[in-house]
């Protein structure tokens, strides 16, 4: 299934792009996606330790193994610094 991944802040700087589509086997979850993202962008390994995901605009920790489905939008969310 195709998962659209958005890169923000630090993660975008390290990965060098703001959007990328990943191909995930059916039944894949957020942890599987995390591994694919890191293998595509090894520099992100450290950064991801302090990031969470937003799956269709809802926060999810990758390690929660949240199941994903075709067309989901997953954003990489580094620690927030708004306000």
């Amino acid at each position, binding site marked *: 299934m195709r998962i659209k991944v958005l890169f*923000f802040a*630090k993660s975008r*700087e390290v990965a060098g792009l703001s959007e990328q589509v990943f191909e995930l086997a059916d039944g894949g979850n957020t942890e599987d996606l995390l591994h694919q993202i890191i293998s595509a962008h090894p520099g992100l390994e450290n950064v991801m330790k302090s990031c969470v995901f937003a799956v269709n605009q809802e926060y999810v920790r990758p390690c929660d193994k949240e199941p994903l489905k075709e067309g989901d939008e997953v954003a990489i969310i*580094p620690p*927030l*610094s*708004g*306000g």
Partner: protein
Amino acid sequence: MFISEENVFVEITENDLDICKCMELVADPGAGAISTFNGVTRNNFQGKTVIKLDYEAYVPMALKKLQELAHEVGRRWNVCKVAVAHRKGIVLVGEPSVIIAVSSAHRRESLEAVQWAIDELKAVVPIWKKEFFEDGSIWKENEE
């Protein structure tokens, strides 16, 4: 441009924020108090001189979270109206990056709501700032 639903107004904009606009939005004949919080760019951080901040937002989700936050204020306090505006892009020293305005019949509710709202905003709204120091720039995590 504010998104408005009932008594909640939220906005993420590249333009300068306008305190008077926010005050007008939350004006209400039944309100005896309007409290506001304005986050502005400070010229120093941890002893380093800051020139400007650059804000980035996951806009659709940030707007959603701002609306959720504003509605939550209405659930927790007896308030009339809530407006939250956040800047995107470059914000120079002294310029506001966020304005929260809350109106209520009595002062207690709006004063408490504004305090809760800025803390909540920093915790849940997907916005990031990049601090430009005189000696180079870093991303800053919300240590506050």
